[in-house]
């Protein structure tokens, strides 16, 4: 089975978020970047498990600049066979999905996997867009995936619970918690990643449909109001009369 896993760069969870140039750009100074956790922990690791069980290959794809190569090497260290980087700034979700779909069309994959969202844009847009561009089914928020030949059996989150579905490859899937466990790359993996192929390809012509104009930070929270543990009634009164929430 040929699997394509979409990998995005994201600021480490502990990063301080602020903006520069009149709040039009994320300030990357001092920020540690990681592989977007949903892409890494769930989509990539499950793809590797499927390859280990059934054979095949795992390719990662990233739309970004050379600055993204370090997180792409991390994905290779975890176990992907090869990586592709579309050499362009990811202008918006549509632009990104379009590049990935172009590569997938040209190279024919059984499954394209994404994380359920990125932790910086939280859009959940890429997977559905790729599916539409490829004219394939899209399984959103999958928490379990088993393969038998070309048939996949998948647990999927739905409103008010979950459902078990089955479908044939090819399809696009977004992965959520439950899909796999995090893998820490070992030294052998890190060494091997240095020589694994990372192919850089030019972007296809595509107009972005949206743009982020400005950003803002939420208002700072006022300090926590402490209530004595022996006076729980006061907390209830505050929630009722001050916060007016109960």
């Amino acid at each position, binding site marked *: 089975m040929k699997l394509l896993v979409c990998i995005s760069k994201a600021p480490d*969870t502990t990063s301080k978020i602020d903006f520069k140039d009149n709040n039009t750009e994320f300030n990357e100074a001092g920020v540690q970047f990681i592989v977007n956790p949903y892409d890494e922990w769930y989509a990539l690791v499950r793809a590797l498990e499927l390859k280990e069980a059934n054979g095949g290959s795992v390719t990662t794809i990233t739309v970004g600049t050379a600055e993204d190569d370090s997180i792409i090497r991390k994905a290779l260290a975890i176990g992907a066979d090869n990586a592709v980087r579309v050499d362009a700034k990811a202008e*918006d*979700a*549509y632009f990104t*999905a379009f590049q990935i779909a172009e590569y997938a069309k040209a190279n024919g994959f059984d499954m394209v996997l994404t994380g*359920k*969202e990125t*932790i*910086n*844009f*939280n*859009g*959940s*847009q*890429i997977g*559905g*867009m790729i*599916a*539409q*561009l490829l004219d394939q*089914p*899209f399984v*959103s*928020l999958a928490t379990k995936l088993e393969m038998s030949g070309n048939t996949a*059996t998948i647990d999927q*989150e*739905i*409103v*008010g*619970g*979950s*459902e*078990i*579905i*089955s*479908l*044939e490859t090819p*399809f696009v899937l977004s992965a959520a*918690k439950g899909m796999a466990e995090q893998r820490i790359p070992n030294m052998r993996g890190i060494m091997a990643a240095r020589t694994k192929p990372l192919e850089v390809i030019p972007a296809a012509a595509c*107009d972005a*449909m*949206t*743009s*982020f*104009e400005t*950003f803002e*930070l*939420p208002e700072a929270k006022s300090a*926590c*109001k*402490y209530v004595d*543990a022996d006076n*729980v009634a006061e*907390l*209830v009164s*505050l*929630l009722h009369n001050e*916060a007016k*929430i*109960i």
Partner: protein
Amino acid sequence: MSVLVYIDTLSGKIAKNAMEAVQYGSKIGSTTVVTNGDISEGELSKLGAYGASKVLVNKALKSNDSEQITKLVAKAVESTGAETVVFSHDLVGRAVAPRLSVLLNAGLVSGAVALPNDNGQVKVNVFSGKAYGFVNVKTSKKVIALTPNSVGVVPGSGEASVEAFDADLGASKITVKEIKKQEGDILLPEAELVVSGGRGLKGPENWGMIEDLAKVLGAATACSRPVADIGWRPHHEHVGQTGVAIRPNLYIAAGISGAIQHLAGVNASKVIVVINTDPEAPFFKAADYGIVGDAFDVIPKLTEEIKKLKAEN
């Protein structure tokens, strides 16, 4: 301007986040709703109270298949001439809105938390609740997916007309083998009040008091990541960076220290109450109200006090 709102009504009921999406749409323009599944016309006509003039319903389509729902919504866009399509950014919206965006060449704004401003830009959640962005859509048609419980909903009056809506949806490539309903009436992602427990509660057998408090409040229950990972609570209750991100009006956290990954899932909550024995727990920095104390002592008292309050009002 003509607006189309897609809502999920497969449960046979109209969820609050669906009403919210309809009312949001009605503030942008003249709103038609499209939905599918086995839901009564009486129920759907109530959407008039949230600003819908007409509801189109396809009763034949009873699945979540995003390919088929996308075709249904696209046909409704064609027949109504809608320029803006609104979804709730819930599980169905996340699957269908991106497909529709591509099909209609309509720029997608996902995670909206406010109406478009005077420049037509839409405010959205970014960086897992740590910031907001303002999105400009360059295409003439737009798709907006609204974050649940972000703008709220106030019922008005009126009835919507309900019409059957047929569309050629093709055959689904997906077979549904089993549907598992989540236990409890209140679903976590859309809950307005949430009571959550962490490792400080020491074991799954101690969750009774969390459930009691949730029941008195009419709240959903949630938990921290370690608790879901050890198997004390189901994974769908895990809120945080890698679980569910929520934005209830009230989040009560008992025995949760407040690791940054947990905060990423809850910091958009309007009011946060933290109960922890450790006065140095980082969660207090993000809290509106805090009690330094033992959850085993405080939670049952809180339940009793809320019962009293409910009895008085």
